[in-house]
């Protein structure tokens, strides 16, 4: 379509491209804005649950989300200090 316009009219009208790019981008960004920091919320709750059983450094809890075309993944990376087994054993008793 763009090429056809270029052939017909010399200079291409770029405003329709701007409009389309904005519409797609803003639809995406508005979607993200709707959920007030979902990752922050997940991180805080996961930290609270795990902290009940293991002493954690809050800085070492990383929650990451990847949005794919078909599936999205949620990755939770928690660094546990040494002595973890002992805490588990203590919690079990």
């Amino acid at each position, binding site marked *: 379509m763009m090429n056809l316009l270029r052939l017909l009219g010399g200079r291409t*009208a770029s*405003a329709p491209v701007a409009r389309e790019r*904005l519409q797609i*981008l*803003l639809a995406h*960004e*508005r979607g993200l804005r709707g959920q007030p920091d979902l990752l922050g919320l997940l991180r805080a709750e996961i930290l609270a649950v795990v902290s009940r059983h293991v002493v954690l450094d809050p800085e070492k809890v990383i929650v990451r989300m990847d949005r794919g075309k078909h599936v999205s993944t949620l990755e939770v990376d928690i660094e546990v200090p040494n002595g973890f087994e002992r805490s588990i054993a203590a919690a079990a008793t």
Partner: protein
Amino acid sequence: MAKVLVVTSGKGGVGKTTSTAALGAALAQMGEKVVVVDFDVGLRNLDLVLGAERRVVFDLINVVQGVAKLSQALIRDKRLDNLWLLPASQTRDKDALTDEGVRSVIADLRTKFDWILCDSPAGIERGATLAMRYADEAVIVTNPEVSSVRDSDRIIGMLDSKTVKAERGERVEKHVLITRYDSARAARGEMLSIEDILEILATPLLGIIPESQDVLRASNVGSPVTLNNAASAPARAYVDAARRLLGEAVTMTVPVERKGLMNRLLGRRAA
């Protein structure tokens, strides 16, 4: 009843300060008692655009911190009796602004003025959020250009969530003001059209300010464009926008430059 109006945009350089000065002066010319407040702490410029840069003694931060009284910091315009400026501090940083301090200054200004126009800094940080915090209305200054429209959309989202009105479940009345508009380029499809911008932002239009040399000329001499050259296209566009703020129904047009006879004969742009 006093109205607090924030002039905001997210993006820098789109014409917030120019528009604050022009709308403030236009409202004052119509008999409203107006104060324009500069929230750009550390990078103040509203004083310069209004030609009051050498008259600043105390500023917003001094008032917030109780160092000066509000009446000591307010500067009365030399041309318009009912236009006042509350300048920002040039030396302090934006962290000197506190929510409580801003709340109390705005409450005080509400008792003294019809219109309180808050000139927001660019960005979405503290200065910008505090400038919009107590607003009843908002003018979102937007250029017909992708990055400006995107940032306006973000700011509209903030006006709907981070203001006191929004938190109370009320709505800040929002208006889009399109600046630096070039009808000819838009007609050729080289620039986003008014319809495109309004459809994307889904916010009513306050006015269309055409791209014009008169805007720079006015800021060069420290005079709002509505005062400096009242017959110019941008001045007429700002006056129309101010009348709409006052609730008048004014037909939406893009004012064009009026060419003088000699200029027309010589094919020059009006200088």
